[in-house]
């Protein structure tokens, strides 16, 4: 069992490093949060939402704002490594490179969840609807896990191009569509009080996405980073 423990430790060290950098600089999560709120306000103006419409759209808006905000964090998490050639340091480390993927993926997951935790009470306030329910939080955890693992993979891909971080949304949004559809639909179901039996296929789809994209990261991260 020793290699496994060492592998998990590597993942933890990378996650810890990212969290430490964020804690000391506090430049990622606040930007994501403000951006997410701006998206919510923009949509309200752009779509001229009437109060009846608002309630039904809350879950959609929540996921759109989370997805947009998360992109900022994903870009930052790789461009940060690029800036001072820190990536070379990571690549030189005698560890399995998929551990770098999982480490980064977990820290991105943590940052996006943090944004979501702050957004939930705000949404409850704005849309007159209690969104602090356990099932919804569970769905958010699943959806964000799938989204950030796919995002981490594609961010590592897009950072190697000449267009750098501009490319990430173009690659990520269409591929993340099944995650977003499943997340929005299951959140809407939970908020309107549907039984789990009606929603389980959406939840299973989310679980499938988490498994699939993490497997993709495990398989391809090494290939993406080789130079």
């Amino acid at each position, binding site marked *: 069992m020793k290699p496994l423990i060492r592998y998990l430790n590597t993942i933890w060290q990378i996650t810890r490093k990212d969290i430490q950098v964020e804690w000391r600089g506090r430049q990622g999560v606040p930007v994501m949060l403000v951006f997410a709120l701006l998206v919510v306000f923009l949509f309200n103006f752009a779509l001229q939402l009437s109060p009846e419409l608002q309630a039904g759209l809350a879950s959609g808006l929540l996921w759109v704002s989370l997805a947009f905000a998360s992109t900022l964090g994903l870009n930052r998490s790789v461009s940060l490594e690029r800036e001072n050639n820190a990536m070379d340091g990571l690549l030189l480390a005698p560890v399995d490179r998929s551990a770098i993927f999982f480490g980064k993926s977990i820290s991105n997951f943590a940052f996006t969840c943090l944004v979501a935790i702050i957004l939930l009470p705000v949404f409850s306030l704005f849309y007159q609807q209690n969104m602090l329910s356990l099932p919804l939080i569970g769905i958010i955890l699943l959806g964000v896990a799938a989204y950030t693992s796919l995002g981490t993979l594609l961010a590592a891909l897009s950072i190697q191009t000449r267009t750098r971080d501009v490319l990430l949304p173009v690659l990520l949004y269409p591929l993340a569509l*099944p995650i977003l559809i499943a997340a929005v639909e299951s959140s809407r179901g939970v908020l309107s009080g549907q039984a789990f039996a009606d929603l389980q296929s959406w939840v299973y789809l989310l679980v499938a996405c988490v498994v699939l994209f993490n497997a993709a990261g495990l398989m391809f991260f090494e290939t993406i980073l080789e130079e």
Partner: protein
Amino acid sequence: MSKKPTLLLLFDVLSLILIPAALILILFFTPVERVMGPVQKVFYFHVSAAWAGMLGFIFAGVAGAGYLITRRQTWDWLSLSAIEVGLVFGLIAILSGMIWAQPIWNTWWVWDPRLTTTAIMELIYLAYFILRSGLDTPEARARLGAVYAIVSVGTVPLTFFSIRLFRTIHPVVITTGGEGGAFNMSPRMLLAFFISLAVFTLLLADLVWHRYRLAELQTQNKQEA
């Protein structure tokens, strides 16, 4: 410069003969659908184009895996060619679908899950070219392109599954209900349909091969210059 393979020439000739033949078959041999009228005949090439596009994308993913395993440039050419040709077939499927939808649904476009996901699939593969154009070396283009092609081919079925959970107004011709599935078509329609599918598959192979040869010749040309 390598000579054009004889088999490719055969594919060219067969495509040139069989596509008009299939068209004649569809126009004059198949019965006119009772409710929709003649516009239903769009169906044969519409489904065939969608099929060919999908097949191209799946093949691109397989070729991408081939590249990552063997690291031979030829696999990358195949993957790139299949996506490029698949993209065109996908576009044909969408456009022909719109032509059908205008009289039947009374609108060119509806935000139906099936239509939306097909459009998204096109966007996924458009992004493939943006990704490639941002990379400098052929090696990076091939390596990252292969990863992207594989991840995409894994996501597309998920997207299609996710729309199955929605109610769609798109006609479902092949039903899985009953014993082993069934086609809601008359025998003549069925025959024309399968011939269209076969012809489009042949055309796909022909075009992908041509595009592959183009990539090959481009590389040779660069090396000679």
